[in-house]
């Protein structure tokens, strides 16, 4: 849903939504506060920028964004946990966790994107490119 918000409403709103969603996740799971916020903010901002620029009006944009976001979030979480000194198994991340997460999120991507589009509606202004100057 965060990917859909970022694609539909742009990088800044997407990142803000992701930040607060991350706070909720960390609070609910009693995890280290800020870890999910940090990762989701970065990922949602990137997805938002992609939606504002090259991903505009491309039908495969939601699917591609979901796959990329899932991979980025999982790898980012792995890196962050390693840096924080938590015991994390690379084998578990790369071979057991990543593929099911990508498959599940990809399956859910289309209906969730459609639902979010209906809820939020399209906002043409937000989908216009920001800070991108096309040559020629």
């Amino acid at each position, binding site marked *: 849903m965060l990917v859909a918000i970022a694609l539909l409403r742009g990088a800044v709103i997407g990142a803000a939504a992701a930040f607060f969603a991350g706070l909720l996740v960390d*609070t609910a*799971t*009693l995890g*280290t506060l*800020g870890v999910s*916020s940090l990762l989701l903010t970065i990922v949602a901002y990137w997805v938002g920028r992609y939606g504002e620029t090259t991903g505009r009006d491309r039908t495969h944009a939601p699917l591609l964004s979901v796959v990329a976001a899932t991979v980025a979030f*999982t790898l980012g979480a792995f890196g962050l946990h390693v840096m924080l000194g938590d015991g994390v198994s*690379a084998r578990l991340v790369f071979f057991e966790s990543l593929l099911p997460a990508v498959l599940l999120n990809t399956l859910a991507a289309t209906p969730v994107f459609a639902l979010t589009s209906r809820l939020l509606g399209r906002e043409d202004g937000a989908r216009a490119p920001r800070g991108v100057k096309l040559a020629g």
Partner: protein
Amino acid sequence: MVLLALVLVTISFRESESGGLHSAQDAGATVLHPFQVGIERVVRPFRDLAGYVDGLIAAKAENARLRRDLAVAQQEAIQNRTAFEQNRALRAITKYHAPPSYPDDYAPVPAAISAYSAAQFEQQVVVAAGKNAGVRRDDPVLDQSGYLVGRITRVSSRSARVALLTDESSAVSAQALRRDARGLVRPGRAGTGALLLDYVRKSSELRTGDRIVTAGSQRGQLPSDYPRGIPIGRVTDVSQSDTDLYKTVQVEPFADVDSLESVIVLVTRRGKR
């Protein structure tokens, strides 16, 4: 926002559990608790369906193994009952002062799983029981069958975080039943759900099929968080080489940590362990 998140991570990581940010997080977790329970109820049927299909695939082999186990268990139950009565009589005669023992000195606190970790590779779950129910940090956590699944690592007023046996941070002092073999149970190869019994002396006698329980050592400066005698798993492989200092012992846990629906937190009745 990225900067703010980094600041939050830093404070959350460095601050003690009684600090302001942790207290705010605990309050937030309490507010979110009803929503967590609601979401878990929505997600549960899908998780159950996946577990059902998975269970069907393994059911036939599991059925044969359980029948064999039942025959052995019935014989052992009779022997254990006799030993238990003998032990109780001897304790009364010698006025033996024992440390808190399982299960008599522990009260069970049943709790549903209310959330799973955000990162799927973290082997941690959140249960719907916290300080209000008497749960404290480092309390042992069992599944519905009484097998060890982990320990409490964080507590808020209405929920608590559990590090499962398969989490990389887990380590449990353990021993083999009826054998002089002690060691430390740690997660085995990631993703397999298996455990390793580490630091077992080469002179110790240990065989495939031996059952491993918590050692519950109360001696020394660092007594175990777990009471003695909680079943952990069964030895599936024992090997050793000339170069290794200890035996390599693989253990299959009794508890299926991947399909937990609810758990039992053991809260000691005698105050501090």
